[in-house]
């Protein structure tokens, strides 16, 4: 039989060798290979989100404000020679005329001292308070405390929420049912009331036990606030993470990982949690202002940080007594609280718009 003569069926998938010659099978030259190079960097999820975030003027403005505040609270204590709990002394003597100074003012004794020695004293940028303490540095430390409380509380909430939510969501079934009933109950407790109640109680209970430890400087109120945050506030985070995991765990790649015998822990940490990352980051960013809100509220009720430490809330509360004569002392911490909360809220919204592509 002559192959050449055989008629090809039009449905045949066989390659017609006659159409090729030797040149078709030569190796590609370097020039040709270069054509296959990727022209642009491939974009990652993170880069894509950051690009969208950079286009959002409100979010970028918030970042600028936050960075400025953080720089201020980190740097200012290094060049302001006063401390937050120090009644200012001139030449080793307590200065009675020092109290309630106006912005950038010196007391009479300070002026006399400067005249005498020719030395320049550091100005009191926001004046001094009723006890003669430099108000600027008190505000700086107050901002430090408020921000630190917000960040630590948010991280705590996130950590507990992630662990609890991911366990409940991933294992499902009876475990999930029991765990979510507990969440339901905690969720229905009025958090603010319980915070106030426990602050009152823990203040009394912990007062003796903490004396002399590292925590005593922080004060029982702060500790009790963290305890309450750890006990109550993680529930909404846990619910969120559980919901995310319920949808993600049905994906094929999780099934594939299970098939090749990946241990549960690794599936959770390597395959599932990274996919919830955007939700986690956004909620954390929005959790910080709510913690700052709570702290300032408690401080305002007199249940916040212990004296002489100050937070923005307690500064505002202290300033209430003399607010008619010295309104600036009330307005400054109030404005800073609003700025921080506003910036974090806007940043959180911006992050959501940039990273959570599902929400449109």
């Amino acid at each position: 039989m002559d192959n050449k003569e055989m008629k090809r069926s039009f449905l045949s998938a066989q390659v017609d060798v006659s159409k090729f010659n030797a040149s078709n099978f030569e190796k590609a030259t370097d020039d040709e290979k270069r054509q296959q190079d990727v022209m642009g960097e491939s974009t990652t999820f993170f880069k894509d989100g950051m690009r969208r975030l950079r286009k959002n003027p409100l979010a970028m403005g918030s970042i600028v404000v936050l960075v400025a505040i953080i720089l201020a609270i980190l740097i200012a204590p290094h060049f302001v020679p006063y401390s937050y709990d120090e009644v200012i002394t001139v030449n080793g003597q307590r200065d009675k005329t020092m109290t309630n100074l106006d912005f950038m003012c010196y007391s009479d004794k300070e002026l006399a001292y400067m005249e005498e020695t020719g030395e320049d004293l550091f100005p009191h940028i926001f004046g001094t308070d009723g006890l003669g303490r430099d108000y600027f540095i008190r505000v700086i430390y107050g901002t430090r405390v408020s921000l630190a409380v917000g960040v630590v509380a948010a991280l705590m909430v996130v950590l507990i929420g992630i662990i609890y939510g991911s366990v409940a969501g991933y294992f499902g079934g009876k475990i999930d049912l029991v765990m979510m009933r507990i969440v339901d109950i905690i969720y229905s407790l009025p958090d603010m009331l319980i915070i106030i109640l426990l602050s009152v109680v823990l203040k009394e209970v912990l007062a003796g036990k903490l004396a002399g430890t590292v925590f005593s400087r922080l004060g029982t109120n702060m500790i009790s606030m963290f305890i309450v945050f750890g006990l109550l506030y993680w529930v909404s985070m846990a619910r969120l993470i559980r919901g995310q995991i319920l949808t993600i765990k049905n994906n094929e790649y999780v099934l594939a990982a299970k098939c090749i015998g990946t241990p549960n822990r690794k599936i959770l940490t390597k395959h599932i949690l990274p996919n919830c990352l955007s939700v986690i980051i956004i909620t954390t960013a929005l959790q910080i202002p709510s913690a700052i809100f709570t702290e300032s509220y408690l401080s305002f009720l007199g249940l916040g940080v212990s004296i002489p430490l100050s937070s923005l809330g307690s500064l505002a509360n202290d300033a209430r007594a003399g607010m008619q004569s010295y309104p600036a002392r009330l307005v400054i911490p109030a404005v800073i609280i609003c700025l921080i909360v506003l910036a974090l809220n806007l940043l959180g919204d911006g992050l959501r718009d940039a990273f959570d592509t599902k929400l449109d």
Partner: protein
Amino acid sequence: MAKYISKRILLAIVSLWIITLITFFAMNAIPGGPFNKEKATDPAVIQQLEARYNLDKPLGEQYRLYMKNLLHGDWGISTKSGRPIWNDMIEKFSVSAGLGLRAAVIAIIFGIILGAIAALNRNKLPDRLIIFFTTLGTAMPSFVLATLLLLVFCLKLGLFPVFSSENPNYTLPVIALAVYPMAYITRLTKTSMLDALNQDYIRTARAKGVSRTKVIFVHALRNALIPVITYVGPMVAYILTGSMVVENIFTIGGLGSTFVTSISTRDYPTIMAVTIFLAMLMVVANLLTDIVYKLVDPRIKLD
């Protein structure tokens, strides 16, 4: 539906019970009893007093008695005034409730109106202005707003008299309480209104020739209001806790300021009673919110 409601009621009862547990045992964890004074009292007198208030019994028994009294409407006796707490609490609460109700009504009405305006003028000047001010409103703690209002309008400008029982002027305290929930409702209404306006039935209604006003009010707004219902529960909680500082700042003798005073004077029975009372209000508000939410919109599936 009946199953859902009974489940929700059960959950509410359980959480109320847990609240009484927490408050009772937390209060008893505080060292020192109510009769420990600086001045040494005769041990026999203390013993008699403790027997009278059942403080000599074991803690579990005390809790049982406290709950029994509570369920019979006996909220205990204030260690500061020596009078039954219930009467004082209800009297003070009527003041707080008046304040809170006004704030809630204003927040809901203005929130919905502003939210609808913002949604209908999307990305135009009114929308931008409303969103700017609501963002500002959610960033301002109630105590900051209250003190600033007091400072500017009462003390500096003298537009409003300082609050007193003879001359009660609720304007500033109500504003201080209402701004945050109003801002929240505005944002909620705007989002859900935009969502509703994009629905097919809106286009259908317009195509059928229904007037623009009718479409907005009957077709869009009514559906847009459903998510707002969910906020009523949290709003009650916010107003009740917010009124603690607002009442304190404006020196209104309501339940909130009583609570704060009892914290600073360590009047533990009053703290307990007020906590349980407020918690009851919040839990019931949340319960009703959930049930009403489910009733108005059969599409919603809650598990």
